[in-house]
């Protein structure tokens, strides 16, 4: 067997698996296929086998490395502490370097992840064009002539807001009322373009709670999508840029006052009380920056908080206005499994008077979005989404709340295709509406 770089590095991580199988039923792809090869335990065994030279690095590993959604539900289930997310990133990198991944999915992904997503101007321009096309109905005009895959992709595309909605956030938003601290906000790459309203809601809620909100202009895409796709070099580059951006922005301001109820009593590493993120995928990646760039990333990583987690920790001031709705909360995988945040959003929602928080059967299961998985694996994604929608539909919510843009888009498209009369919202939007 030819020496493949990366295999040696990932081998120790595979030894953490004791083969107990407690991960099996947590895995969305195992649930659909019933195959050991499509289970976390099977995938770790496969990786170990390849790393130990028992089996060749071949198409099964290449397929499984990408059939896995990277939801990391297996990490929540694993008693032995296998760092599956990290193993997966390394496995994908190995598969890519061995030239085992070809075809249109790879090409689209590379274009999106290398050229579009990390470059705000390109992304803004491209989505601007899409927005205009959507407004004029041009997309529907050409749709019938497009290949099937393109038509499916179109179905998943959200409505891109007008340019006025896609403006950047102010670099500093002052605290309202008595100041409790100073936080940085990580706005993300796709969030400001597609979910600008959500970002503005986040800043509004943070300011209302007495936090000055700084949005460093030099911040970049978090690198999560690139890392998940095995593009570890690009992810590393973005990670370093963010460490510098947040470090510099933090150093410019005054040292935060330790007013009662601030996030941290000790001197914060970046000069902020916290780096607040409202996208679960970005939050998970930023929290693990040290996995990519070592100690250099630790200070930033250690300060990252999901917006709901942060607000729950510092405590909301005052009583929200009532919102008389049935709300089902759905856990984003990268919030519950990768960041261990499950109760905070529920507590915040429950504190809204008259809001009825309803449980459903599958809150912690993946919705099948997983970055661009719904484009690369439409059938598996649809099967996973169907299970999620069955559970949500049975709970009959008026609003489905979840804190990740990919999940919001996926669930929105799914709910629409089923004709469900339901609104999709980030929990922070509901908090903003009840201020």
């Amino acid at each position, binding site marked *: 067997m030819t020496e493949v770089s990366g295999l040696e590095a990932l081998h120790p991580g595979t*030894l953490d*698996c*004791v083969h107990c*199988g407690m991960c*099996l039923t947590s895995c969305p792809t195992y649930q659909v296929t*019933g*195959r050991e090869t499509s289970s976390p335990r099977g995938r770790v065994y496969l990786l170990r086998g390849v790393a130990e030279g028992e089996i060749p690095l071949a198409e099964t590993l290449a397929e499984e490395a990408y059939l896995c959604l990277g939801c990391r539900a297996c990490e*929540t289930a694993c008693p032995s502490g296998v760092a599956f997310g990290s193993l997966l990133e390394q496995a994908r990198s190995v598969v890519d370097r061995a030239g085992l991944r070809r075809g249109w999915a790879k090409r689209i992904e590379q274009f999106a992840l290398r050229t579009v997503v990390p470059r705000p101007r390109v992304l803004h321009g491209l989505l601007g064009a899409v927005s205009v096309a959507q407004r004029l109905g041009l997309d529907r005009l050409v749709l019938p002539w497009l290949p099937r895959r393109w038509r499916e992709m179109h179905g998943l595309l959200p409505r891109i807001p007008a340019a006025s909605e896609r403006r950047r956030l102010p670099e500093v938003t002052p605290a309202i009322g008595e100041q409790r601290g100073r936080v940085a906000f990580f706005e993300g790459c796709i969030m400001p373009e597609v979910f600008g309203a959500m970002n503005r809601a986040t800043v509004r809620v943070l300011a209302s709670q007495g936090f000055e909100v700084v949005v460093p202009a030099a911040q970049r895409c978090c690198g999560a999508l690139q890392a998940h796709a095995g593009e570890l070099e690009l992810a590393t580059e973005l990670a370093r840029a963010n460490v510098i951006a947040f470090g510099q922005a933090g150093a410019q301001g005054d040292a935060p006052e330790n007013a009662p109820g601030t996030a941290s009593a000790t001197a914060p590493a970046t000069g902020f009380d916290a780096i607040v993120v409202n996208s679960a995928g970005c939050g998970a990646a930023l929290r693990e920056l040290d996995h990519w760039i070592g100690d250099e990333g630790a200070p930033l990583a250690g300060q990252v908080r999901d917006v709901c987690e942060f607000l729950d920790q510092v405590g909301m001031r005052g009583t929200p206005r009532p919102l008389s709705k049935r709300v089902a909360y759905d856990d984003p995988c990268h919030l519950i499994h990768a960041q261990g945040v499950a109760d905070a959003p529920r507590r915040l929602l429950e504190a809204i008077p008259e809001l009825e928080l309803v449980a459903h059967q599958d809150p912690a299961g993946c919705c099948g979005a997983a970055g661009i998985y719904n484009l690369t694996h439409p059938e598996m994604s649809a099967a996973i989404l169907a299970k999620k929608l069955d559970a949500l539909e049975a709970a009959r919510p008026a609003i489905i709340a979840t804190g990740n843009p990919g999940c919001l888009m996926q669930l929105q498209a799914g709910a629409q295709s089923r004709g469900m009369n339901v609104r999709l919202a980030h929990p922070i939007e509901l908090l903003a509406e009840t201020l």
Partner: protein
Amino acid sequence: MGPTPNPSSLEASLRDVVGADQVLTRPEELFVYEVDGLTHHSARPRAVVLPATTEEVARVVKVCRRHEVPFVPRGAGTGLSGGALALGRGVIIECARMNSILQIEPEDRYAVVQPGVVNTDLSKAVLHHGLFYAPDPSSQLVCTLGGNVAENSGGPHTLKYGTTTDHVLALELVLPDGSVVRLGSPSGWPAGYDLVGAVVGSEGTLGVVTEATVRLSPIPERTETLLGIFPDVVSACRAVGAIIRSGLVPAAMEIVDRRTIEAVEASVYAAGLPTDAGAVLIMELDGAAVAVGAQAERTRALSLAEGARDVQVARDEQERQRFWRARKGAFGAMGRLAPDLYVNDAVVPRRKLPEILEAVCAIGDRLGLRLSNVFHAGDGNLHPNISFDRRDADELARVLQAGEEILRLCVEAGGVISGEHGIGTEKREYMGLLFSDDDLEAMKKLRAAFDPTLACNPGKLFPTTRICFEANPKARGYDQVPFE
């Protein structure tokens, strides 16, 4: 992609039955199916097939028979005795896709399930009727009922509720000739030989179970879970004896020793168990609300009298679940210590628990092994866990030696060699410790009545004359063992 299709080949015939998607034949895919929960035994199958219906299973079995290839049913592959290994380059019949609950009869208190239904999923599905499925192996979040039937699985609540065999009323079985038979009835075994009893625990050697009718039990009105904290394992064992002697019938009594506590507390299943305790004893009492409170109080007093430093009572359902998650995640949590874990499974008379436990630990210490104990103390069912690395041939040899010494010790004390994990490939050579040649011959005759060609899960349960695995660190060579 694959080899040129040969319409008369085994693989092609299997594809005809279940469709090309549901037959796995790539070397890497077969590699993944070479082990179950017992990692130091392995055997690569010739193919893996995933049928969806009884009819497909029957046709798959007929194809195997026509090609003279052995076959083995498999569920989630969490078994700990190598029961799901396909010896003799056999075909694995993976039942995970047959996961429907076919019928629930709350009034008659039974459910009809396919073999791939996950143990806890059944309890979840009948919860709203106030019922549950009682056998609860530690792997119940993932293991399948088909596998439970094959291995006669137990679990912590075996103490009060019995093992799987006490909860199976009827079975549908594909016999090794491909015919389908139904054994038993929802009303219980009508008369004559108890064939359902013969199939439960037969480790897949009598046929492939394709449907099971299982008993459902009413959820007790009240459950109290206590956590006794003891200075050492021996005093915890003595408390178990005292509680049983007093006439109480707890639903479960489980001991977790210090080394296991440390591993669990470092894992996602951490329950806040005190890491400075020598052992904790989880005790559960359930039944009528009026009785349980007083019983829990007596249990508490008895534990304190036997030297418990403290006895905590779970304040709510959440805390109760946390205690149990810690217990049930213990096996996996041991993965934090080493890449492999060998779980021994022997039973001794309860009164001998304290001395046997000491002797077991001495064996581990003498052989320089990392041995810990987490076990069903109420049943006298030991689970000495040995953490090791199968790539270390010397360590593996010591693990196997310890396993054998522990089994001999338990048998000499009047015990048996398996409480709930089965014999499989793991303990087949030790059957002679318990059974005479005549006993084994009688068992073989029963088996031959179902499976005259010995094609169904060969190489399990019965001793072979050749042992060729101990010298090999990965125990390859299992597939060379003739299946009769």
